[in-house]
């Protein structure tokens, strides 16, 4: 299976990507690693700390790489992670439909 990449919006030369910020609800995490493995942009890493259940939750290693694709959220079996769109001054805001999940 291929993970769908963001499509280039027509008429804009430089690809504009949405920026996302990831929220991790650590105590729900069971450390399965799906989000880390299947993040298209390798944003996440496994942390060393233990959560209350004794698992290692992920942490955001490359925050700037997140494009708010929402795959970590869908792929998390424990509903412990999701991303929200953040607007960054450095980049142009992404077209609305491309960030809509």
């Amino acid at each position, binding site marked *: 299976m291929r993970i769908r990449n963001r499509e280039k919006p027509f008429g804009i030369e430089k690809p504009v990507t949405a920026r996302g910020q990831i929220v991790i609800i650590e105590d729900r995490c*069971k450390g399965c690693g799906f989000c880390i*493995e299947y993040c298209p942009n390798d944003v996440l890493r496994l942390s060393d700390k233990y959560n209350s259940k004794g698992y290692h939750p992920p942490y*955001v290693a490359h925050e700037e790489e997140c494009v708010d694709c929402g795959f970590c959220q869908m792929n998390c079996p424990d509903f412990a992670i999701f991303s929200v769109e953040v607007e960054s001054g450095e980049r142009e805001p992404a077209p609305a439909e491309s960030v809509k999940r």
Partner: protein
Amino acid sequence: METINTIQEQKHPMDDLLRMDRIPHIWCPGCGIGNAVSAFAEALRKLEYDLDKVVVVSGIGCTGRVAGYIKTDSFHTTHGRAIAFATGIKLGNPDLKVIVISGDGDLVSIGGNHFVHAARRNIDLTVICVNNFIYAMTGGQVAPTTPIPAYTTTSPFGNFEAPANVPQLAEAAGAVYVARWTALHMRRLADSIVEAFNRPGFSVVEVISPCAMYYSRINKLGDGLDMMQFYYNNSIIRHGESTDNLNIDYQKEIIVGKFVDRERPAFSESLNEWLRKDQVE
């Protein structure tokens, strides 16, 4: 973790669809049932259907607990009888959208008869069958879907029974919509559920899901991530494949896709027609 601190007030996007007060759920790390629920919730969100009119019915088993986590009217019934229970709900109030989410053992083994007959009657239900090749809640017994020669606790020397082919059974019994995806095909699965949901009649979506605890451990297949990786490498999308070819062999490639999409008169239509005819006579 600073990310949490900054936007902790953000709600999880599934909050309205799931009973977050019950999370963390009971499923093991690396289990794919959570993914299936996630896809289902996504489908519900896409549908924009009145959630008050959606009913989720589950049987018993790991997947049987799904009903408890979805924030609609939901029923956790007895082992194998989810479809029968759902039939009652659908006929009692035909305006409802009734969805059965349960496991392979529940739907195909003990509930096989209800599965066949609900498909034959073409009762308007959507059945999501999460197939993890094993009875997980009771501790890893051989299921009718266990491939040859997988090891389980009740087939300690390898399974030798031919596994059931869920899409084929569904097709033969008369289901109008049959699809299969793995727990990794999240978006396609969600789309498929949407399609099944909109199809009047008995629709079946099979979800191949890793059981990281019992199935993979005894067969030394690694953890949930390894099994997901296996699906990643070995699943082939072939829409419209003949259901004869959909048997799943041990650690062989898995054909996924949408296999059946047809129309047959649904039960409630036939019943109404019959009642009308009866009255005329």
